[in-house]
């Protein structure tokens, strides 16, 4: 697997992050993906985020809990431009591949 392509888990995580505003932490990502019918573990999201951080697709920083929240600091991740570009490229590739396959056409 080439390093500059996005894996399916990475796509899911990035899309969920963008839906959540592009700046979030792992728990909402897990919940977002599950709400859309995906099944993913926190551990997987955690590992995928770290990996994308190493590749410069996301950045992270630690933030203290909000005034009404309990617990300690959480690590927030931000989607970077490179990630958006890769997502667009992946979408293009996949869309063109999807086109014209009649058996996969959903009934209108």
């Amino acid at each position, binding site marked *: 697997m080439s390093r500059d392509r996005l894996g399916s888990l990475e796509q899911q995580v990035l899309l969920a992050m963008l839906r959540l505003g592009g700046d979030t932490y792992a728990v909402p990502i897990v*919940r977002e993906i599950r709400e859309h019918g995906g*099944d993913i573990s926190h551990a997987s999201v955690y590992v995928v985020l770290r990996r994308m951080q190493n590749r410069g697709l996301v950045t992270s920083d630690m933030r203290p809990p909000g005034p009404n929240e*309990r617990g300690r600091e959480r690590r927030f991740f931000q989607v970077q431009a490179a990630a958006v570009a890769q997502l667009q490229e992946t979408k293009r590739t996949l869309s063109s591949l999807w086109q014209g396959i009649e058996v996969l056409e959903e009934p209108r």
Partner: protein
Amino acid sequence: MSPGQYPARTPVIGWLLRWIHGAEEAGEILIELRELGWYERRERGALRARLLFWRESLRHAAGRQLRGGMDPDDGDGGPGLGAWLTDTRHALRKLRHSPLHSVITVAVLGLGIGAVTAVFSLVNMLLFATLPFAQPDRLFTLEDVLTRPGQPANPYTPQARSLYALRDLLPEVDLAGHRFGTFRVHGGDVPTQVIGVHVTDRWFETVGVRPFLGRGFSQEQQAAGAGASAAMIGHDLWQRRFGADTSIVDTTVLLNGQPHLISGVMPPGLRFPWGSEVWVQSEFDRTATFSLGTVMRVPEGTGLTELRAQLAVATDQVAQMYPETHTHLRFNAKSLRDYLVDNRAGVAWMLLAAVAMLLLLACANVAGLATVRVLGQGKELAVRAALGSGRGRLFRLVFIEGALLAASGGLLGLAVAVLLQRSLASLGSAPQSGVGLVLSIGMDYRVVGFTTLTTGLAAVLASTLPALRALNSGRAGSLLRTRGGGEDRTTGRLLSATLASQAGIGAVLLIVSVTVAQAYMSLESTERGYEGTDRQVLRVVLPDEDFPGGDGRWQHLEQMARQIEESPDVVAAGYTHHLPMTPGTWTRPLTFEALRDGVAVSSRASVRWVGTSYLDAIGIDMLAGRSFTAEEMEAAAPVVVISAGLAARMSDNPATLVGGRVTTGSRDEDDRPWLEVVGVAEQAQEEWIHTDTVYLPYSDVPHAWVEMVVHVQPGTGVRQLAAWLPRVDPEQPVDDVRSLATMAATELQAERLATQIVGVLAVGGLIITLLGTYGLVSFRVGQRRRDLGIRMALGCDSRRLVWHVVSRGVALVAVGFMVGALLTWVLVPPLFGGSVAETDYVDLHLLNAGLSPDPGATSGSLGLVLLTASLASLIPVLRALASNPLSVLRED
């Protein structure tokens, strides 16, 4: 709404995550997992939330390995069953490829698990067995303590009076008493003689026994008081004599010639007290001075301290009621459990310590073997990682191998345990407590489980931890180093420590077992001073019913002895109330009159009441003077025969003692009769503790329970004598003729069992040490094959190479051994060296022999362990040297 945290406290998961991910990262993960848990609880309930939390946490724990690898998209969730099966097959193949290592590991595991389980089950039974009585913790025994020293003990206190007095004074405590008795059971061809007890009313309720058959003594029988016609019989007797006839209840059986109504059968194995097989209800004379065992059942919640306090008060009250008998007497209580199990506890603890040692040894060994196994596979793991195997996959492989080894070891261990247990049980020496509780040895499967779990955990942890460390720290590539394999500095030290410590543990096991074996052998070879061969023993019982007050007993016995001597097969016959070297002590303080520079000297000696021809019959020669005569018995003459050892300490010329005077009371008591010494007998070992003996005429204290010792012609069997006996006394049961030599052997059976157990542990330990050392050293040598090959290629002398490798292993083992030996020398004597306080039932003479490790045992063990280590090191070295150095070099 801002999210909360659930579950609030997660110490175990927290620890696990911190251990794997480090504190900082674990903190980040935990807070998020708890947040997820909070959402889940809000939406699907607390149980689902906890499940989710645990599942996610475990994924995180494994995630480092499972998803840290090369392929980012190996999907979510763990590996499927198929992957596990594939890896299991692979692991099996790998185990087959290194058969030696696999076999050694499984053997070590199996031996360790087996020996530990077998011995622990036995020790567990001795130490922690529950007594077969209802709520046994509420049971105590009553002891009288004489507050004025030097007074003769129990037999002179009217204990029945104490019992009935205490019943009145302590209404909350149930008291019941039992008195030793012997019963001739009629029915069948020949009568049989059994031990039994006369018991007070409420005895069964107090002790808390439910009969196997029948109902115990009914209220009406109890109310009738002297309804002495009711009897319970033991399960064994019921099977032996009455063919397990269930209709026996409410039938009448003759006991000592008197009809008794059988009201029930006791549960199997229960022969409390004193090995009883018959329990007869009796009313006791309150003034009679016989020995009465007393059992107390206290109300729920009353402890020993409270009971003792109550007894202390009662002591004074009873003393006021009966000043003539109870002035110098104090009541004390002891828990029934201590009373029954006490005597063996020392040995049981020793065995338990030895078992723990063996378990430790097995764990250390297995851990060492598993570690080298993983390290030995370093290259393979590194290659697999390079070829794209995920870390999870590699970790799984290692884990499965460890688990497979542990499981096979567990199975083998189970088999070994069953075998060992059978052989221990088949020694025919299922330990019987001195007071008649037959405890059955059963396999304790919880112990099997525990042992397997412990050693298995050692195996799995030892194989996965090094792999985990290497994989987590990204050092998978470092496993590729050829020289030294995966053995880094820490691991090297760890392995050295394992080698040394297993030698140390092995040393402790070996030295202790050799010491115990030596003590046992010294007991066995003790110069007894009497003849064991061609001596047969017949138990004769002369019940009170036939000989009221003991009158006529000695005449009957003397006549019986003379009649037995008429048999052509018999040389001589004589009787004693207590055979040499059988359980129980009969001691008296002794004072010699005006001896040794005119000073009266007192000494303690065992006392034997014997017939006129006993010394002759058992083969104890007279050194000076003579034995008693029938005339002296008739006249109740105050005469005594003393043993040579006693005589020698009192005078340089024992013969001069004949005609002197001696008393069996204490020095201060002027009312004790003085006895004339008529003879000095050859020194004989009558008892383990007290080697000095005085022999008194049987007529002095005519016991009901007597052993007739018969000196037979060489070659005469027990059957021949048994065939002759009915001519002497047709009433006398003859089913109990035994040879004295056999009896002496059975006498030491508990000691033999203990010795054998320690022996099993030591042999097991030695084999484990041998295998483990071999496994570790051969791994190390294998890792150095390249090194050795280069040296060989450069022309290094092979002898020097061998010395180089072997000396290192042997040195480590020697150091470990020294530490272990030192520990043994320091710890064993204070723990087991002292002699046990004298009680009525000291029946483990090993303890009295005073265990202390001796230099011979230690150096012998050292030699054995060093030899083992040398062999274990030598074989792999020689194997490595035998291969062509060039081909070894080419391998890389």
